[in-house]
């Protein structure tokens, strides 16, 4: 009898305990979450330096395919010297996703030699020492060829840590047919609309079945920060102080931020944009404009009847600073890469980010290259609709804040945007964000 009770108690603890421990393993069965290539690395003569490369895409995606191709070419070129084993891990799949796997590898001191890092997490990684500086392996002249934003987002405490194959931006896509019907002339790259002009256009475009624009407000996460930080920068504000003290009070809740969120709030309250947009509303013609990255172009290609164009980021008012997003995934060399292998790892990063690789990546996924020499090799960037990207990249791009607590900062700002869109007072939402940020980081 007693034994029964003990067993019952153990079972109960097991049942309940599994809540705390295994709260995320349920949905991993969906699709293949991980792909590897070159598993038989040792067939290649014992002398070659073996390098592990982890990327955040499996080889089922177009981006993952490019990584695979680049690595295969690299291995071919460096036969007998360096042998790279590529592992692609999808970002989705809770607790089994890429970020979680990297976190686990950090804890186990078992990191791959080279791995992809999302731009804004650089500061935290550099601060924690999970990645090592790579500046010494690159020529100054070679680095000068990279977009300014790429160098900006890869630099922490005056040391270069990461480089990327591609950069990114956000454009304002417009539906040419709806514009013509409403009698609206799109803005040109060097002469952007003001916020007022944008709102006016939305009013003209809005009908019972068409929203003025899709702001992607359903995607409460990094997107909202990436896309709408430039609204603050256009008013010469920022999310956080850049004096190294990382203060948010007086920045995250300052007038420039309030103005930016009020702009969004008025659009939602006026029924001009949806607070819960679905995907592809722009392609289906139920949003006349959309803010989106270069990745949108691949989707638009599936809708050949859609006539579209691009416009630059709107500015706060006539004469205000023009700002646009930039930055994307990069490569870093990990702390667990042996000292004597670092040069080989840098060789790999060089290969992945050279002019040709950037062009190849553009061909596959339409992302703007990280190098100016690659830009000049791609005709599409010299004319509409992509000329807006090259213009923004060269003239208005500003990197996201390079601060250790960026993930918390971005989360609080994105939530503030979402809260405002769901009806909360702007100042209140931002003051809450400041309070929550300070609480989380322990200030």
């Amino acid at each position: 009898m007693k034994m029964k009770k003990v067993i019952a108690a153990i079972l109960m603890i097991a049942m309940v305990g599994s809540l705390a421990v295994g709260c995320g393993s349920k949905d991993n069965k969906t699709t293949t979450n991980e792909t590897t290539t070159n598993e038989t690395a040792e067939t290649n003569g014992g002398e070659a330096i073996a390098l592990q490369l982890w990327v955040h895409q499996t080889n089922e995606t177009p981006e993952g395919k490019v990584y695979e191709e680049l690595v295969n070419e690299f291995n071919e070129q460096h036969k007998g010297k360096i042998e790279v084993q590529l592992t692609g891990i999808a970002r989705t799949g809770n607790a089994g996703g890429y970020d979680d796997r990297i976190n686990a590898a950090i804890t186990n001191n078992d990191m791959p030699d080279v791995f992809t890092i999302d731009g804004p997490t650089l500061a935290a990684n550099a601060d924690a020492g999970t990645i090592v500086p790579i500046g010494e392996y690159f020529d100054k002249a070679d680095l000068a060829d990279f977009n300014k934003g790429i160098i900006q987002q890869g630099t922490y405490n005056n040391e270069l840590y990461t480089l990327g194959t591609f950069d990114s931006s956000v454009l304002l896509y417009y539906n040419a047919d709806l514009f013509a019907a409403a009698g609206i002339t799109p803005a040109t790259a060097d002469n952007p609309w003001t916020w007022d002009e944008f709102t006016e256009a939305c009013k003209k475009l809005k009908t019972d079945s068409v929203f003025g624009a899709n702001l992607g407000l359903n995607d409460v996460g990094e997107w909202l920060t990436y896309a709408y930080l430039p609204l603050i920068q256009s008013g010469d504000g920022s999310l956080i102080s850049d004096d190294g003290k990382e203060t948010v009070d007086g920045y995250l809740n300052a007038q420039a931020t309030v103005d930016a969120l009020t702009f969004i709030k008025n659009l939602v309250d006026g029924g001009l944009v949806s607070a819960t947009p679905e995907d592809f509303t722009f392609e289906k013609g139920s949003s006349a404009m959309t803010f989106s990255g270069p990745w949108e172009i691949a989707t638009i290609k599936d809708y050949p009847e859609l006539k579209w164009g691009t416009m630059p980021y709107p500015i706060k008012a006539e004469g205000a600073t023009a700002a646009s997003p930039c930055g994307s995934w990069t490569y870093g060399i990990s702390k667990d890469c042996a000292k004597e292998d670092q040069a080989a790892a840098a060789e790999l990063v060089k290969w992945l980010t050279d002019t040709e690789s950037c062009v190849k990546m553009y061909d596959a996924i339409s992302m703007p290259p990280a190098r100016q020499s690659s830009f000049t090799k791609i005709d599409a960037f010299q004319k509409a609709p992509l000329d807006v990207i090259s213009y923004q990249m060269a003239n208005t791009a500003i990197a996201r804040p390079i601060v250790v607590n960026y993930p918390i900062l971005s989360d609080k700002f994105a939530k503030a945007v979402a809260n405002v869109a769901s009806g909360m007072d702007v100042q209140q939402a931002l003051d809450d964000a400041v309070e929550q940020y300070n609480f989380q980081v322990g200030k």
Partner: protein
Amino acid sequence: MNNQVAKKKMNMESVTGLAFVAPALFLLFVFLIIPFALSLSYSFMEYNILKPDEKTFIGLKNFIKLFHDKVFLKSVLNTFVFVVSVVPLQVCAALGLALLVNRKMKGISVFRLAFFAPTVLSLVVVSILWYYIYNPNNGLLNAMLGMLGISAQPFLTSTKQAMACIVIMSAWQGCGFQMMIFLAGLQDIPNHLYEAARVDGANKFYLFRNITLPGLKNISIFISLSIVISAFQLIIQPMMLTQGGPQNSTITIVYQLYQTGYKFRNVGYGSAMAVVFTLMVLIIVLIQKKLTSKNNED
């Protein structure tokens, strides 16, 4: 003499018994006891996931911080609201469906399959589906309400309605499974009880109250216990539908825990949440078990 043999037999038996239990115990230790013990130890530490070598002991600071954390307290409240509303709804829906499909009829298995189908789907898929249904602009639900002359509702964008939306969706997704268990229970109730009662002139309601319900008692206890435990783990639905919003109205404990530990990399603080959460659920389940088993003994 006899006694000694018996003793020997006992020993042999317990050895075999242990051998049988060993694999399960091993798994229990590796995947449960040890991780939980680690969690417990981390909860007393300042531990950034990027800096595993710089763990420092900070005593109860994480726990003290928890009780000043507005968002965490809100997540506790939200989780309780969810559990308290989803459990009765899901049990009643499951029982109702089981009664509906517990009859001999042509094509009844089609209905059973249809009601069971949502439980087979991934919660992620179901959530995306319901995101479209709940869409306030052109979603299915508002279109249906419109036909009834009810004005469009904001659903997931409203702080008042978002949690209710998640409750209804979760009950819909989950109840098919419990329906099957109830159905098995219904078919276990001996038919002669009904016949005898009918001969005595009992009406349908009487049959249900005095034969069906008592016959399902043990199953109901099992079902409500298992729903309570899984309801406490709510994370996927808010993650997919609302990201915890609007204004933290659908943030849950496990979601907050996941964000703190992985997204904000604060493993120490996240572990403290896990520990508090586990104890909380353990206590509630024990109380629930005590209450229900007392009723059972008579």
